[in-house]
Protein backbone atom coordinates (compact mmCIF):
# COMPACT_ATOMS: atom_id res chain seq x y z
CA UNK A 1 0.00 0.00 0.00
CA UNK A 2 1.21 3.44 -0.93
CA UNK A 3 0.28 4.90 2.44
CA UNK A 4 2.72 2.64 4.24
CA UNK A 5 5.70 4.63 3.06
CA UNK A 6 7.54 6.65 5.66
CA UNK A 7 6.17 10.20 5.44
CA UNK A 8 9.43 11.74 4.23
CA UNK A 9 8.02 15.21 3.62
CA UNK A 10 6.53 15.39 7.10
CA UNK A 11 9.82 14.35 8.65
CA UNK A 12 11.66 16.97 6.59
CA UNK A 13 9.24 19.73 7.59
CA UNK A 14 9.43 18.81 11.26
CA UNK A 15 13.20 18.50 10.99
CA UNK A 16 13.37 21.98 9.48
CA UNK A 17 11.22 23.41 12.29
CA UNK A 18 13.47 21.78 14.86
CA UNK A 19 16.62 23.06 13.17
CA UNK A 20 15.18 26.58 13.11
CA UNK A 21 14.31 26.25 16.77
CA UNK A 22 17.76 25.08 17.79
CA UNK A 23 20.08 26.88 15.40
CA UNK A 24 17.87 29.60 13.92
CA UNK A 25 19.88 32.60 15.13
CA UNK A 26 22.99 31.32 13.29
CA UNK A 27 21.51 31.21 9.83
CA UNK A 28 18.59 33.63 9.90
CA UNK A 29 19.34 36.44 7.42
CA UNK A 30 18.50 39.16 9.94
CA UNK A 31 18.04 39.75 13.62
CA UNK A 32 14.34 38.99 14.35
CA UNK A 33 13.72 42.34 16.02
CA UNK A 34 16.03 44.40 13.78
CA UNK A 35 14.03 47.46 12.73
CA UNK A 36 14.64 49.06 9.31
CA UNK A 37 11.95 51.65 8.77
CA UNK A 38 13.22 52.50 5.28
CA UNK A 39 12.49 48.92 4.25
CA UNK A 40 9.05 48.66 5.87
CA UNK A 41 6.31 46.76 4.03
CA UNK A 42 8.68 45.31 1.42
CA UNK A 43 6.76 42.57 -0.43
CA UNK A 44 8.20 39.05 -0.91
CA UNK A 45 11.04 38.78 -3.44
CA UNK A 46 8.98 37.53 -6.38
CA UNK A 47 6.75 40.61 -6.34
CA UNK A 48 7.82 43.91 -7.84
CA UNK A 49 9.59 45.97 -5.18
CA UNK A 50 10.71 42.85 -3.35
CA UNK A 51 14.32 41.84 -2.86
CA UNK A 52 16.24 38.75 -1.88
CA UNK A 53 17.51 40.60 1.18
CA UNK A 54 14.03 40.05 2.59
CA UNK A 55 12.84 36.88 0.85
CA UNK A 56 9.36 36.83 2.45
CA UNK A 57 9.05 40.59 2.78
CA UNK A 58 9.05 42.84 5.82
CA UNK A 59 6.46 44.12 8.28
CA UNK A 60 5.43 47.65 9.23
CA UNK A 61 8.70 48.21 11.09
CA UNK A 62 10.82 46.77 8.31
CA UNK A 63 11.55 43.59 10.27
CA UNK A 64 12.35 40.56 8.12
CA UNK A 65 9.42 38.11 8.00
CA UNK A 66 11.57 35.06 7.27
CA UNK A 67 13.87 35.77 10.21
CA UNK A 68 10.86 36.29 12.45
CA UNK A 69 9.29 33.01 11.36
CA UNK A 70 12.58 31.27 12.15
CA UNK A 71 12.66 32.96 15.56
CA UNK A 72 9.01 32.05 16.12
CA UNK A 73 9.86 28.38 15.59
CA UNK A 74 11.99 28.47 18.72
CA UNK A 75 9.08 29.69 20.85
CA UNK A 76 6.64 27.22 19.32
CA UNK A 77 8.98 24.28 19.78
CA UNK A 78 9.97 25.27 23.34
CA UNK A 79 6.34 25.59 24.39
CA UNK A 80 5.45 22.33 22.63
CA UNK A 81 8.30 20.33 24.18
CA UNK A 82 7.55 21.43 27.75
CA UNK A 83 3.80 21.18 27.31
CA UNK A 84 3.96 17.71 25.78
CA UNK A 85 6.43 16.37 28.34
CA UNK A 86 4.37 17.70 31.26
CA UNK A 87 0.88 16.88 30.03
CA UNK A 88 2.06 13.48 28.77
CA UNK A 89 3.87 12.71 32.01
CA UNK A 90 1.08 13.82 34.32
CA UNK A 91 -1.67 12.36 32.14
CA UNK A 92 0.09 9.02 31.69
CA UNK A 93 0.91 8.69 35.38
CA UNK A 94 -2.70 9.35 36.37
CA UNK A 95 -4.02 7.15 33.57
CA UNK A 96 -1.80 4.21 34.50
CA UNK A 97 -2.70 4.53 38.19
CA UNK A 98 -6.43 4.77 37.47
CA UNK A 99 -6.34 1.77 35.16
CA UNK A 100 -4.14 -0.38 37.35
CA UNK A 101 -5.45 0.30 40.84
CA UNK A 102 -9.13 0.74 39.96
CA UNK A 103 -11.52 1.36 42.84
CA UNK A 104 -11.30 4.68 44.62
CA UNK A 105 -8.19 5.80 42.76
CA UNK A 106 -9.92 5.23 39.45
CA UNK A 107 -13.13 6.88 40.65
CA UNK A 108 -11.34 10.05 41.76
CA UNK A 109 -9.19 10.33 38.64
CA UNK A 110 -12.09 9.57 36.33
CA UNK A 111 -14.25 12.24 37.98
CA UNK A 112 -11.39 14.72 37.61
CA UNK A 113 -11.19 13.86 33.93
CA UNK A 114 -14.97 14.27 33.57
CA UNK A 115 -14.91 17.65 35.27
CA UNK A 116 -11.99 18.87 33.21
CA UNK A 117 -13.60 17.68 29.99
CA UNK A 118 -16.90 19.33 30.81
CA UNK A 119 -15.30 22.75 30.82
CA UNK A 120 -14.61 23.96 27.31
CA UNK A 121 -10.88 24.50 26.74
CA UNK A 122 -10.85 28.05 25.43
CA UNK A 123 -12.96 29.65 28.18
CA UNK A 124 -10.84 27.79 30.73
CA UNK A 125 -7.73 29.18 29.06
CA UNK A 126 -9.25 32.68 29.41
CA UNK A 127 -9.70 32.12 33.12
CA UNK A 128 -6.05 31.21 33.61
CA UNK A 129 -4.90 33.94 31.26
CA UNK A 130 -6.69 36.42 33.52
CA UNK A 131 -4.95 35.06 36.61
CA UNK A 132 -1.42 34.06 35.63
CA UNK A 133 1.32 36.42 34.45
CA UNK A 134 1.50 36.23 30.63
CA UNK A 135 4.36 34.54 28.80
CA UNK A 136 5.69 31.09 27.97
CA UNK A 137 5.04 29.71 31.46
CA UNK A 138 1.40 30.65 31.31
CA UNK A 139 0.93 29.16 27.85
CA UNK A 140 2.54 25.90 28.96
CA UNK A 141 0.41 25.75 32.12
CA UNK A 142 -2.78 26.30 30.17
CA UNK A 143 -1.88 23.64 27.61
CA UNK A 144 -0.98 21.11 30.30
CA UNK A 145 -4.25 21.77 32.11
CA UNK A 146 -6.14 21.26 28.87
CA UNK A 147 -4.37 18.21 27.50
CA UNK A 148 -3.55 15.95 30.44
CA UNK A 149 -7.03 14.38 30.21
CA UNK A 150 -6.27 13.33 26.64
CA UNK A 151 -3.38 11.13 27.82
CA UNK A 152 -5.06 10.03 31.06
CA UNK A 153 -8.21 8.81 29.36
CA UNK A 154 -6.50 6.87 26.61
CA UNK A 155 -3.77 5.38 28.81
CA UNK A 156 -6.35 4.38 31.42
CA UNK A 157 -8.30 2.48 28.78
CA UNK A 158 -5.20 0.70 27.55
CA UNK A 159 -4.07 -0.29 31.03
CA UNK A 160 -7.56 -1.57 31.88
CA UNK A 161 -7.29 -4.07 29.06
CA UNK A 162 -3.61 -4.86 29.68
CA UNK A 163 -4.29 -5.57 33.35
CA UNK A 164 -6.38 -8.60 32.47
CA UNK A 165 -3.71 -10.06 30.23
CA UNK A 166 -1.84 -13.19 31.30
CA UNK A 167 1.62 -11.70 31.62
CA UNK A 168 0.42 -9.23 34.25
CA UNK A 169 -1.45 -11.91 36.18
CA UNK A 170 1.64 -14.12 36.08
CA UNK A 171 3.80 -11.27 37.34
CA UNK A 172 1.37 -10.62 40.17
CA UNK A 173 1.15 -14.29 41.12
CA UNK A 174 4.94 -14.48 41.03
CA UNK A 175 4.96 -11.80 43.70
CA UNK A 176 6.17 -8.80 41.71
CA UNK A 177 5.30 -5.63 43.60
CA UNK A 178 2.77 -3.13 42.25
CA UNK A 179 5.26 -0.32 41.54
CA UNK A 180 7.45 -2.83 39.70
CA UNK A 181 4.54 -4.07 37.59
CA UNK A 182 3.63 -0.48 36.77
CA UNK A 183 7.14 0.49 35.75
CA UNK A 184 8.50 -2.69 34.22
CA UNK A 185 5.43 -4.25 32.65
CA UNK A 186 2.66 -1.74 32.05
CA UNK A 187 4.49 1.42 31.10
CA UNK A 188 6.53 -0.10 28.26
CA UNK A 189 3.30 -1.36 26.76
CA UNK A 190 1.74 2.08 26.59
CA UNK A 191 4.87 3.82 25.28
CA UNK A 192 3.80 3.40 21.66
CA UNK A 193 0.48 5.02 22.41
CA UNK A 194 2.24 7.85 24.23
CA UNK A 195 4.55 8.45 21.29
CA UNK A 196 1.60 8.63 18.89
CA UNK A 197 -0.31 10.99 21.17
CA UNK A 198 2.74 13.20 21.66
CA UNK A 199 3.34 13.47 17.91
CA UNK A 200 -0.29 14.36 17.29
CA UNK A 201 -0.26 16.80 20.20
CA UNK A 202 2.69 18.69 18.74
CA UNK A 203 0.55 20.07 15.93
CA UNK A 204 -2.31 20.76 18.23
CA UNK A 205 -0.10 22.64 20.72
CA UNK A 206 1.32 24.82 17.96
CA UNK A 207 -2.19 25.81 16.89
CA UNK A 208 -3.29 26.38 20.49
CA UNK A 209 -0.28 28.54 21.32
CA UNK A 210 -0.72 30.51 18.10
CA UNK A 211 -4.36 31.11 19.03
CA UNK A 212 -3.52 32.41 22.49
CA UNK A 213 -0.70 34.60 21.18
CA UNK A 214 -2.95 35.87 18.40
CA UNK A 215 -5.44 37.03 21.03
CA UNK A 216 -2.54 38.73 22.82
CA UNK A 217 -2.90 36.43 25.82
CA UNK A 218 0.04 34.15 25.12
CA UNK A 219 3.62 34.95 24.18
CA UNK A 220 4.26 38.66 24.70
CA UNK A 221 6.40 40.92 22.52
CA UNK A 222 9.32 41.41 22.11
CA UNK A 223 9.37 37.60 22.02
CA UNK A 224 8.40 36.52 18.51
CA UNK A 225 5.58 34.05 17.98
CA UNK A 226 3.69 33.01 14.88
CA UNK A 227 0.35 33.86 16.48
CA UNK A 228 1.65 37.28 17.52
CA UNK A 229 2.87 37.93 13.97
CA UNK A 230 -0.63 37.19 12.67
CA UNK A 231 -2.08 39.61 15.21
CA UNK A 232 0.34 42.35 14.08
CA UNK A 233 -0.36 41.65 10.42
CA UNK A 234 -4.11 41.77 10.91
CA UNK A 235 -4.03 45.56 11.17
CA UNK A 236 -2.37 45.81 7.77
CA UNK A 237 -4.45 43.19 5.99
CA UNK A 238 -5.46 45.66 3.28
CA UNK A 239 -1.93 46.62 2.29
CA UNK A 240 0.35 43.68 3.06
CA UNK A 241 -1.07 40.22 2.43
CA UNK A 242 2.24 38.52 3.24
CA UNK A 243 2.04 39.52 6.89
CA UNK A 244 -0.89 37.20 7.54
CA UNK A 245 -0.16 34.46 5.02
CA UNK A 246 3.49 33.58 5.80
CA UNK A 247 3.24 32.91 9.55
CA UNK A 248 0.00 31.01 8.92
CA UNK A 249 1.76 28.76 6.41
CA UNK A 250 4.43 28.03 9.03
CA UNK A 251 1.70 27.02 11.51
CA UNK A 252 -0.14 24.93 8.95
CA UNK A 253 2.98 23.16 7.67
CA UNK A 254 4.20 22.17 11.14
CA UNK A 255 0.78 21.02 12.24
CA UNK A 256 0.12 19.10 9.02
CA UNK A 257 3.51 17.40 9.24
CA UNK A 258 3.06 16.31 12.83
CA UNK A 259 -0.48 15.04 12.16
CA UNK A 260 0.64 13.00 9.17
CA UNK A 261 3.59 11.58 11.06
CA UNK A 262 1.35 10.80 14.04
CA UNK A 263 -1.19 9.00 11.85
CA UNK A 264 1.60 7.03 10.24
CA UNK A 265 3.06 6.04 13.61
CA UNK A 266 -0.35 4.97 14.85
CA UNK A 267 -0.94 2.78 11.84
CA UNK A 268 2.54 1.31 12.14
CA UNK A 269 2.11 0.41 15.80
CA UNK A 270 -1.44 -0.79 15.41
CA UNK A 271 -1.88 -2.69 12.15
CA UNK A 272 -5.57 -3.29 12.89
CA UNK A 273 -6.32 0.35 12.19
CA UNK A 274 -4.84 0.21 8.71
CA UNK A 275 -8.07 -1.03 7.23
CA UNK A 276 -10.70 1.63 6.30
Amino acid at each position, binding site marked *: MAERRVPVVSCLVLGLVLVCAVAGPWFAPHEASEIALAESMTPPFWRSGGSLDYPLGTDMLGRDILSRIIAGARVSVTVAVYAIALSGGIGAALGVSAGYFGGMVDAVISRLID*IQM*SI*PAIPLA*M*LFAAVLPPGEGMVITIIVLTYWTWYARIVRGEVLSLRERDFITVARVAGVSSPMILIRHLTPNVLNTLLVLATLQFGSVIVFEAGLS*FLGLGIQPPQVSWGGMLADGRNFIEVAWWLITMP*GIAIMAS*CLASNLLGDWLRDTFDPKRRIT
Partner: protein
Amino acid sequence: MRAYLIRRLWQGAVAVLGALVIVFVAQRLAGDPVALLLPMDASEEDFAAMREALGLDRPLPVQFLVFLRDAFTGDFGESYQWQAPAMTLLLERLPATLELALAGLAFALLLAVPLGVMSAVYRGRWVDRLAKVLALLGQAMPGFWVGLLLILFLAVRLQWLPAFGREGPLHLVLPAVALGWYPVAAMTRTLRSSMLDILDSDYIRTGRVMGLPERTVIWRYALRNAAVPLATMIGVYFANMLGGAFVIEVVFAWPGVGRAVVDAVFARDFPVVQAGVLLSAVIFVVVNLLVDLSYGLIDPRIRHG
Protein backbone atom coordinates in the same frame (compact mmCIF):
# COMPACT_ATOMS: atom_id res chain seq x y z
CA MET B 1 -33.45 4.66 31.08
CA ARG B 2 -34.48 6.26 34.35
CA ALA B 3 -31.37 5.14 36.21
CA TYR B 4 -29.31 6.36 33.29
CA LEU B 5 -31.04 9.72 33.37
CA ILE B 6 -30.34 10.13 37.07
CA ARG B 7 -26.71 9.16 36.64
CA ARG B 8 -26.21 11.63 33.80
CA LEU B 9 -27.89 14.44 35.74
CA TRP B 10 -25.63 13.68 38.69
CA GLN B 11 -22.54 13.72 36.49
CA GLY B 12 -23.61 17.03 35.00
CA ALA B 13 -24.10 18.50 38.46
CA VAL B 14 -20.65 17.29 39.58
CA ALA B 15 -19.10 18.84 36.48
CA VAL B 16 -20.72 22.22 37.10
CA LEU B 17 -19.65 22.07 40.73
CA GLY B 18 -16.11 21.27 39.58
CA ALA B 19 -16.17 24.30 37.31
CA LEU B 20 -17.32 26.42 40.23
CA VAL B 21 -14.42 25.17 42.36
CA ILE B 22 -11.93 25.94 39.59
CA VAL B 23 -13.32 29.45 39.15
CA PHE B 24 -13.24 30.05 42.90
CA VAL B 25 -9.64 28.86 43.20
CA ALA B 26 -8.61 30.96 40.20
CA GLN B 27 -10.20 33.98 41.81
CA ARG B 28 -8.06 33.46 44.92
CA LEU B 29 -4.96 33.05 42.78
CA ALA B 30 -5.74 36.34 41.08
CA GLY B 31 -4.48 38.19 44.13
CA ASP B 32 -6.10 40.50 46.62
CA PRO B 33 -9.19 42.10 45.06
CA VAL B 34 -9.09 44.76 47.76
CA ALA B 35 -5.83 46.10 46.36
CA LEU B 36 -7.55 46.59 43.00
CA LEU B 37 -10.55 48.35 44.47
CA LEU B 38 -8.87 50.73 46.90
CA PRO B 39 -6.69 53.73 46.06
CA MET B 40 -2.92 53.33 46.36
CA ASP B 41 -2.66 55.40 49.56
CA ALA B 42 -5.41 53.53 51.45
CA SER B 43 -4.59 52.84 55.10
CA GLU B 44 -4.46 49.49 56.86
CA GLU B 45 -7.85 50.27 58.41
CA ASP B 46 -9.38 50.90 55.01
CA PHE B 47 -8.11 47.53 53.85
CA ALA B 48 -9.53 45.77 56.89
CA ALA B 49 -12.89 47.51 56.51
CA MET B 50 -13.08 46.64 52.82
CA ARG B 51 -12.15 43.02 53.54
CA GLU B 52 -14.90 42.80 56.09
CA ALA B 53 -17.41 44.40 53.75
CA LEU B 54 -16.55 41.88 51.02
CA GLY B 55 -16.57 38.96 53.44
CA LEU B 56 -12.90 38.24 52.75
CA ASP B 57 -12.09 38.07 56.48
CA ARG B 58 -14.18 34.93 56.87
CA PRO B 59 -12.75 31.41 56.63
CA LEU B 60 -12.30 30.04 53.09
CA PRO B 61 -15.02 27.35 53.26
CA VAL B 62 -17.54 30.02 54.31
CA GLN B 63 -16.38 32.24 51.47
CA PHE B 64 -16.84 29.34 49.09
CA LEU B 65 -20.39 28.73 50.28
CA VAL B 66 -21.21 32.42 49.84
CA PHE B 67 -19.68 32.24 46.37
CA LEU B 68 -21.85 29.19 45.57
CA ARG B 69 -24.99 30.92 46.81
CA ASP B 70 -24.27 33.94 44.64
CA ALA B 71 -23.34 31.77 41.67
CA PHE B 72 -26.67 29.94 41.81
CA THR B 73 -28.50 33.23 41.57
CA GLY B 74 -26.25 34.22 38.66
CA ASP B 75 -24.55 36.88 40.74
CA PHE B 76 -20.85 37.18 39.89
CA GLY B 77 -20.53 40.76 40.94
CA GLU B 78 -20.32 43.93 38.90
CA SER B 79 -18.06 44.30 35.91
CA TYR B 80 -15.22 46.68 36.76
CA GLN B 81 -15.27 48.12 33.23
CA TRP B 82 -18.97 48.50 32.56
CA GLN B 83 -20.42 48.94 36.06
CA ALA B 84 -23.17 46.41 35.40
CA PRO B 85 -23.82 42.88 36.64
CA ALA B 86 -21.34 40.59 34.86
CA MET B 87 -23.79 37.81 34.03
CA THR B 88 -26.40 40.22 32.64
CA LEU B 89 -23.76 41.74 30.36
CA LEU B 90 -22.89 38.34 28.98
CA LEU B 91 -26.46 37.12 28.64
CA GLU B 92 -27.18 40.18 26.51
CA ARG B 93 -24.43 39.04 24.16
CA LEU B 94 -25.36 35.37 24.18
CA PRO B 95 -27.81 35.54 21.23
CA ALA B 96 -25.00 36.83 18.96
CA THR B 97 -22.74 33.94 19.98
CA LEU B 98 -25.50 31.34 19.61
CA GLU B 99 -26.34 32.72 16.19
CA LEU B 100 -22.71 32.43 15.13
CA ALA B 101 -22.34 28.90 16.50
CA LEU B 102 -25.55 27.72 14.83
CA ALA B 103 -24.44 29.22 11.52
CA GLY B 104 -21.03 27.56 11.91
CA LEU B 105 -22.70 24.23 12.60
CA ALA B 106 -24.97 24.66 9.58
CA PHE B 107 -21.95 25.38 7.37
CA ALA B 108 -20.08 22.34 8.73
CA LEU B 109 -23.04 20.03 8.05
CA LEU B 110 -23.67 21.52 4.63
CA LEU B 111 -20.14 20.59 3.65
CA ALA B 112 -19.67 17.39 5.67
CA VAL B 113 -22.89 15.54 4.76
CA PRO B 114 -22.51 15.54 0.97
CA LEU B 115 -18.76 15.06 1.26
CA GLY B 116 -19.09 12.15 3.69
CA VAL B 117 -21.76 10.41 1.62
CA MET B 118 -19.98 10.92 -1.69
CA SER B 119 -16.61 9.80 -0.39
CA ALA B 120 -18.16 6.56 0.87
CA VAL B 121 -20.08 5.95 -2.35
CA TYR B 122 -17.11 6.80 -4.55
CA ARG B 123 -14.54 5.31 -2.23
CA GLY B 124 -10.98 5.75 -3.50
CA ARG B 125 -12.07 8.10 -6.29
CA TRP B 126 -11.34 11.81 -6.52
CA VAL B 127 -14.19 12.90 -4.21
CA ASP B 128 -12.79 10.63 -1.52
CA ARG B 129 -9.30 12.05 -2.02
CA LEU B 130 -10.62 15.60 -1.94
CA ALA B 131 -12.39 14.81 1.34
CA LYS B 132 -9.15 13.43 2.75
CA VAL B 133 -7.17 16.53 1.79
CA LEU B 134 -9.86 18.79 3.24
CA ALA B 135 -9.82 16.77 6.44
CA LEU B 136 -6.06 17.20 6.79
CA LEU B 137 -6.23 20.93 6.07
CA GLY B 138 -9.18 21.30 8.40
CA GLN B 139 -7.09 20.15 11.31
CA ALA B 140 -3.93 21.99 10.38
CA MET B 141 -5.37 25.42 9.55
CA PRO B 142 -6.53 27.13 12.72
CA GLY B 143 -9.96 28.74 12.43
CA PHE B 144 -8.68 32.22 13.20
CA TRP B 145 -6.18 31.99 10.35
CA VAL B 146 -8.89 30.73 7.99
CA GLY B 147 -10.85 33.76 9.13
CA LEU B 148 -7.98 36.11 8.26
CA LEU B 149 -7.59 34.50 4.84
CA LEU B 150 -11.32 34.81 4.18
CA ILE B 151 -11.15 38.49 5.09
CA LEU B 152 -8.12 38.95 2.86
CA PHE B 153 -9.59 37.25 -0.22
CA LEU B 154 -13.36 37.66 0.01
CA ALA B 155 -13.67 40.95 1.86
CA VAL B 156 -10.55 42.96 1.01
CA ARG B 157 -9.65 41.70 -2.47
CA LEU B 158 -12.95 40.69 -4.05
CA GLN B 159 -15.16 42.76 -1.75
CA TRP B 160 -17.93 40.16 -1.97
CA LEU B 161 -18.73 39.95 1.69
CA PRO B 162 -18.47 42.22 4.72
CA ALA B 163 -15.76 41.31 7.23
CA PHE B 164 -16.53 43.03 10.49
CA GLY B 165 -19.47 43.48 12.81
CA ARG B 166 -22.98 42.06 12.96
CA GLU B 167 -25.35 44.02 10.80
CA GLY B 168 -27.16 41.48 8.70
CA PRO B 169 -27.18 37.93 7.38
CA LEU B 170 -24.26 38.64 5.04
CA HIS B 171 -22.08 39.57 8.00
CA LEU B 172 -22.62 36.08 9.33
CA VAL B 173 -21.14 34.25 6.35
CA LEU B 174 -17.38 34.64 6.86
CA PRO B 175 -17.33 34.10 10.63
CA ALA B 176 -19.57 31.04 10.23
CA VAL B 177 -17.23 29.52 7.66
CA ALA B 178 -14.18 30.21 9.85
CA LEU B 179 -15.89 28.67 12.88
CA GLY B 180 -17.44 25.72 11.04
CA TRP B 181 -14.19 24.91 9.25
CA TYR B 182 -12.64 22.75 11.96
CA PRO B 183 -15.33 20.11 12.64
CA VAL B 184 -15.89 19.41 8.93
CA ALA B 185 -12.98 16.96 8.88
CA ALA B 186 -14.15 14.81 11.77
CA MET B 187 -17.79 14.93 10.67
CA THR B 188 -16.93 13.86 7.13
CA ARG B 189 -14.84 10.96 8.35
CA THR B 190 -17.47 9.77 10.82
CA LEU B 191 -20.19 9.85 8.18
CA ARG B 192 -17.94 8.18 5.62
CA SER B 193 -17.10 5.22 7.83
CA SER B 194 -20.66 4.64 9.05
CA MET B 195 -21.87 5.00 5.46
CA LEU B 196 -19.36 2.37 4.32
CA ASP B 197 -20.63 -0.03 6.99
CA ILE B 198 -24.23 0.49 6.06
CA LEU B 199 -23.81 0.32 2.30
CA ASP B 200 -22.55 -3.19 2.96
CA SER B 201 -25.62 -4.29 4.91
CA ASP B 202 -28.43 -6.61 3.88
CA TYR B 203 -31.26 -4.14 3.80
CA ILE B 204 -29.40 -1.94 1.37
CA ARG B 205 -28.73 -4.93 -0.86
CA THR B 206 -32.42 -5.82 -0.64
CA GLY B 207 -33.34 -2.28 -1.64
CA ARG B 208 -31.06 -2.46 -4.64
CA VAL B 209 -32.31 -5.90 -5.67
CA MET B 210 -35.86 -4.58 -5.46
CA GLY B 211 -34.83 -2.08 -8.08
CA LEU B 212 -34.98 1.09 -6.01
CA PRO B 213 -33.11 3.94 -7.68
CA GLU B 214 -29.55 4.23 -6.35
CA ARG B 215 -30.25 7.79 -5.29
CA THR B 216 -33.15 6.68 -3.07
CA VAL B 217 -31.10 3.86 -1.60
CA ILE B 218 -28.23 6.15 -0.66
CA TRP B 219 -29.85 9.38 0.38
CA ARG B 220 -33.04 7.98 1.92
CA TYR B 221 -32.25 4.60 3.35
CA ALA B 222 -28.53 4.50 3.92
CA LEU B 223 -28.01 8.07 5.08
CA ARG B 224 -30.81 7.87 7.63
CA ASN B 225 -29.01 5.16 9.56
CA ALA B 226 -25.50 6.31 8.80
CA ALA B 227 -26.32 9.71 10.25
CA VAL B 228 -26.80 8.37 13.79
CA PRO B 229 -23.13 8.56 14.85
CA LEU B 230 -22.89 11.99 13.22
CA ALA B 231 -25.99 13.20 15.05
CA THR B 232 -24.48 12.20 18.38
CA MET B 233 -21.40 14.29 17.55
CA ILE B 234 -23.36 17.39 16.64
CA GLY B 235 -24.07 18.43 20.20
CA VAL B 236 -20.45 18.06 21.22
CA TYR B 237 -19.32 20.12 18.26
CA PHE B 238 -21.95 22.74 18.90
CA ALA B 239 -20.77 23.04 22.48
CA ASN B 240 -17.16 23.24 21.32
CA MET B 241 -18.05 25.91 18.79
CA LEU B 242 -19.36 28.11 21.56
CA GLY B 243 -15.82 27.98 22.94
CA GLY B 244 -14.19 28.35 19.55
CA ALA B 245 -16.34 31.40 18.94
CA PHE B 246 -14.19 33.22 21.50
CA VAL B 247 -11.35 33.53 19.01
CA ILE B 248 -13.45 33.89 15.86
CA GLU B 249 -15.45 36.71 17.45
CA VAL B 250 -12.25 38.65 17.99
CA VAL B 251 -11.16 38.16 14.37
CA PHE B 252 -14.46 39.40 12.96
CA ALA B 253 -15.31 41.97 15.65
CA TRP B 254 -18.45 39.96 16.38
CA PRO B 255 -20.24 41.40 19.43
CA GLY B 256 -20.67 38.14 21.32
CA VAL B 257 -19.82 36.61 24.68
CA GLY B 258 -16.34 35.55 23.59
CA ARG B 259 -15.18 38.99 22.62
CA ALA B 260 -16.52 40.45 25.84
CA VAL B 261 -14.60 37.84 27.84
CA VAL B 262 -11.36 38.39 25.91
CA ASP B 263 -11.70 42.15 26.50
CA ALA B 264 -12.35 41.41 30.16
CA VAL B 265 -9.16 39.34 30.41
CA PHE B 266 -7.15 42.32 29.18
CA ALA B 267 -8.88 44.66 31.57
CA ARG B 268 -8.48 42.12 34.41
CA ASP B 269 -12.23 42.46 34.77
CA PHE B 270 -12.50 39.30 36.79
CA PRO B 271 -16.27 39.08 37.40
CA VAL B 272 -16.90 39.01 33.65
CA VAL B 273 -14.23 36.35 33.05
CA GLN B 274 -15.69 34.17 35.81
CA ALA B 275 -19.23 34.57 34.57
CA GLY B 276 -18.07 33.75 31.04
CA VAL B 277 -16.29 30.56 32.06
CA LEU B 278 -19.24 29.36 34.09
CA LEU B 279 -21.74 30.28 31.41
CA SER B 280 -19.75 28.23 28.87
CA ALA B 281 -19.39 25.31 31.25
CA VAL B 282 -23.11 25.23 32.05
CA ILE B 283 -24.07 25.45 28.37
CA PHE B 284 -21.52 22.75 27.54
CA VAL B 285 -22.87 20.40 30.23
CA VAL B 286 -26.52 21.03 29.33
CA VAL B 287 -25.97 20.55 25.59
CA ASN B 288 -24.11 17.31 26.18
CA LEU B 289 -26.83 16.11 28.51
CA LEU B 290 -29.51 16.86 25.94
CA VAL B 291 -27.50 15.04 23.29
CA ASP B 292 -27.15 11.95 25.45
CA LEU B 293 -30.84 11.97 26.24
CA SER B 294 -31.77 12.35 22.59
CA TYR B 295 -29.91 9.19 21.54
CA GLY B 296 -33.06 7.24 22.24
CA LEU B 297 -35.08 9.52 20.00
CA ILE B 298 -32.63 9.30 17.12
CA ASP B 299 -32.02 5.58 17.38
CA PRO B 300 -34.86 3.52 18.88
CA ARG B 301 -32.50 0.54 19.35
CA ILE B 302 -30.76 2.35 22.21
CA ARG B 303 -34.02 2.76 24.14
CA HIS B 304 -34.24 -0.96 24.60
CA GLY B 305 -30.52 -1.56 24.93
